């Protein structure tokens, strides 16, 4: 044990760290006893320890600054990716994004449908007169021919008989089709051999198709417009 150590340690930085730690009680009991004994006999360490103590005293005497405001967070603060807080339930809920898209799409579709519908009502022509006659004939056909006509938009499977009838009908000018007509998308045929009129060569009525399309677009667009509007309104605060 060296109760009096006149020689100073070579590593002054390490010695100063020990002196600093001694002030804070960070040394073990044995280290403290040994260092105190050294300091007692070492003027430089005594001065250093005294100087460090004065520094610590000065720092600890500093007043505690007090902020002039609170740092509390607003209640609306949310964690990243977290669900809305209960206190935020009154906040405006964002409407679904698709509602806006639906609303605008519906409006556009309704406008297009309206324009088409107006066009079919305003535009007249040969097709209208011809179709009027055809419709009249079509209404008479079932009773006279004893056949049930049907509105078909796609040609039925072509059997040999039907193919023959179709060929026959193609050779017949539309004006000669005086027997029962049928609204078949593909040219119909008549069978004189069977004594029945089973079809009429007639193209689909584009005006009626356009009218149906216009009405569908108009009604569907209005429905979509109304749906989107209601959804967006439901997202607003009450």
């Amino acid at each position: 044990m060296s109760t009096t150590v006149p020689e100073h340690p070579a590593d002054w930085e390490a010695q100063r760290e020990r002196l600093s730690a001694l002030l804070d009680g960070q040394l073990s009991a044995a280290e403290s006893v040994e260092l105190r004994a050294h300091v007692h006999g070492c003027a430089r360490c005594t001065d250093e320890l005294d100087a460090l103590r004065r520094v610590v005293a000065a720092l600890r005497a500093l007043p505690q600054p007090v902020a002039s405001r609170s740092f509390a967070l607003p209640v609306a603060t949310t964690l990243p990716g977290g669900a809305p807080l209960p206190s935020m339930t009154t906040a405006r809920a964002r409407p679904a994004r698709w509602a806006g898209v639906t609303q605008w799409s519906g409006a556009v579709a309704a406008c297009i449908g309206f324009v088409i519908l107006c066009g079919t009502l305003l535009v007249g022509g040969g097709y209208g007169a011809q179709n009027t006659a055809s419709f009249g004939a079509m209404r008479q056909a079932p009773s006279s021919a004893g056949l049930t006509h049907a509105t078909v938009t796609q040609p039925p499977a072509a059997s040999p008989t039907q193919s023959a009838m179709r060929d026959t009908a193609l050779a017949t000018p539309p004006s000669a089709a005086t027997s029962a007509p049928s609204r078949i998308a593909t040219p119909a045929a008549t069978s004189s051999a069977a004594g029945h009129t089973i079809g009429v060569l007639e193209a689909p009525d584009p005006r009626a198709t356009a009218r149906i399309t216009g009405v569908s677009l108009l009604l569907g667009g209005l429905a979509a417009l109304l749906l989107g509007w209601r959804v967006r309104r439901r997202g607003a605060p009450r």
Partner: protein
Amino acid sequence: MEAGMGGPGSQPEPDEDDALVARSQRGEVAAFNLLVARYQDVAYALAYRMLGDGEAAADVTQDGFVAAFRAIRSFRGGPFRAWLLRIISNGCHDYWRAQKRRPTLSLDALTSEDPEGEPPHAPIGLLAAATTWDPETTALRGELIALIQRALLGLPTEQRLAVVLSDVQGFSYDEIAIVMATSLGTVKSRIARGRAHLRDALQAHAELLPAAMRRTGETE
């Protein structure tokens, strides 16, 4: 040695902190604000002593609390106060980095001591005006307070942080190591070096020190 008047006083209560942290992790701002109320003084004091400017310290403290709340789910236990102060100290570092990019510095900053080649730091002329404290309990005169703060700002930031946490806030070495994310040996070294630099800075103005601080001799 008695606790300084600016120290944190009592130790935090981990159980209460844990409960508040758990509620905060579920998104309860009210619970987090209880933690804010508990630690805002020590957080602001740390930022103030690190920056030497009341407004900057308030901004860094506010940003630190916001950052702490947003990162609360990444908190994996341990002393919440140390975790929070680590965020605050990081904010101080960011502030300094931003300040270094600015070309303008005050005369006070330009004349401050720079023991390890770091650029001078923020002015401290507003030290007294930016803080409020009871003058009857203030042991040092305004000049001495300004001198100490100036000396603190002259320290390298790591040494300054270690000294402020140890000698101004009265933290243990263990907690300082957590705040600084380093070892106990490094904490011990930084504190010792910082104190030595402060000793040199204060030595030129020993006449400002009170008699009790000028007294020599071990009193333990």
